[in-house]
């Protein structure tokens, strides 16, 4: 009997397969300023196309809970790519790390320690990782988007 119970317990989260219905995409877009319909400059987001150092990027992460159960504890972690300098995010659920993901916080609270032991306030270009921890459950069938901006170094 115990064996059956144990097996059942092992198998119970068949919702594991439903969990794989959470899908995630990463899309890098380039922000360019172009003349708008009335001639005034507008900022548009485009496929990368021709990208050179100095170009501004927006990384858009899209998620969807395709399962039939709500998902909680949603935590997305995105290392900043080596050739990109982080410049900002508009998501209030985001925290940043400047030490490779060991510690997290708002940029204003982070410090960088130099080789000689002196510390200085961190700036956007020091950011190594960005993480979003969503407190609200993600209802079944719902979707969302998170994003951050950077510059090609």
């Amino acid at each position, binding site marked *: 009997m115990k064996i059956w119970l144990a097996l059942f317990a092992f198998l119970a989260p068949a919702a594991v397969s439903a969990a794989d219905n959470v899908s995630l995409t990463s899309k890098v877009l380039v922000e360019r300023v172009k003349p708008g319909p009335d001639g005034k400059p507008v900022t548009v987001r485009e496929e990368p196309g021709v990208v050179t150092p100095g170009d501004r990027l927006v990384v858009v992460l899209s998620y969807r809970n395709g399962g039939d159960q709500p998902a909680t504890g949603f935590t997305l972690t995105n290392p900043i790519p080596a050739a990109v300098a982080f410049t900002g995010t508009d998501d209030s659920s985001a925290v940043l790390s400047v030490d*490779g*993901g060991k510690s997290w916080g708002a940029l204003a609270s982070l410090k960088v320690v130099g080789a000689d032991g002196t510390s200085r306030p961190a700036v956007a270009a020091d950011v190594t990782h960005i993480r979003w921890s969503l407190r609200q459950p993600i209802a079944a069938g719902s979707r969302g988007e998170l994003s951050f901006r950077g510059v090609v170094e």
Partner: protein
Amino acid sequence: MTRNMRLLASASVLAAAAVAASPASAAGTAAGTTVTNSVTLEYKVGGIDQNQVSASDSFTVDRKVNLSVAEAGTSATTVTPGQTGAATIFTVSNASNAPLDFALAATQLSGGTAAHGGTDNFNVTAVKIHADTNGNGTYDPGTDVEITYLDQVAADTSRTVFVVADVPLGRSTDDVAGVRLTATAAEATAASTLGATITQTTGANTSAVDTVFADTNANGNVARDGIHFAEDDYVILAASLTATKTSRVISDPFNGTTDPKMIPGAVVEYCIAVANSTGSATATGIDITDTLPPETTYDSAFGIKLNGTMTGSTCNADGTSGGSHASGIVTGTLNDIVGGVTRTLVFRVSVN
């Protein structure tokens, strides 16, 4: 019955801080670099940790061609007429995110305002381009090799280039010859060979490395054409000598030195004054040759006095003995005369 079933799909969460290190070069990430963004997602269903989900997306960094030519230093090169191998110095910089060759051309201004002011009014000759082979910032003839292009200039580096020319004779102080050094971006494919001229990628992005021009329109350049130039000047500093010959009667046999007259037997003193105008280059090797009038006889007792001075229009008797006389011809060489100074050669004759 809660059991943690965290199955780590990838280890990207544990990436080290080196992931976001800035590149060392100001030119930026090397062209052709693939940049990949990776994100991982952890979540629970029913309070139970689920498989981690990850996603990634990549793009290729294209080539941004940015070159510049600048004059090294802030002043024109001062030259004397007849000078050979005079150099103007330029710096050619590759601020692209890829190595390049640079085709080079040296041309001359035809009139117009020169880089350091003044109007271009003459041309130098035998214009050549030389590399700074020994890297000392100075043109060394025989050591710094003549070139027509720069080979394999790495991203974010600069090279010193000399434009070398000869200066014609017959120019005056403050004459200006302007020269222009133009660099054109070319592919850095094979070493020791000038690559093809680079063209900008038109149309949509390709999967290969595309090219964008980013050169500026500084100092009269055209922006974003893969070509850049700078100008520098040769300015003449010449000596400007005038020679004036005067004479005065020193004595005659009857009046002595009191109101002497120009009669046979009179002693006449000749003063040849060489003046170098103010602001000129120093004149050297000043050789004077004077043929005596046939009606006179050289006064060897007085001799030839060199490097005397003048007060107003009077030749002072402060020269030193020198020079020589033979067969009615007086010769002498004066010391160097700097701008603004006059020096004299003085000798005497008697009227036959």
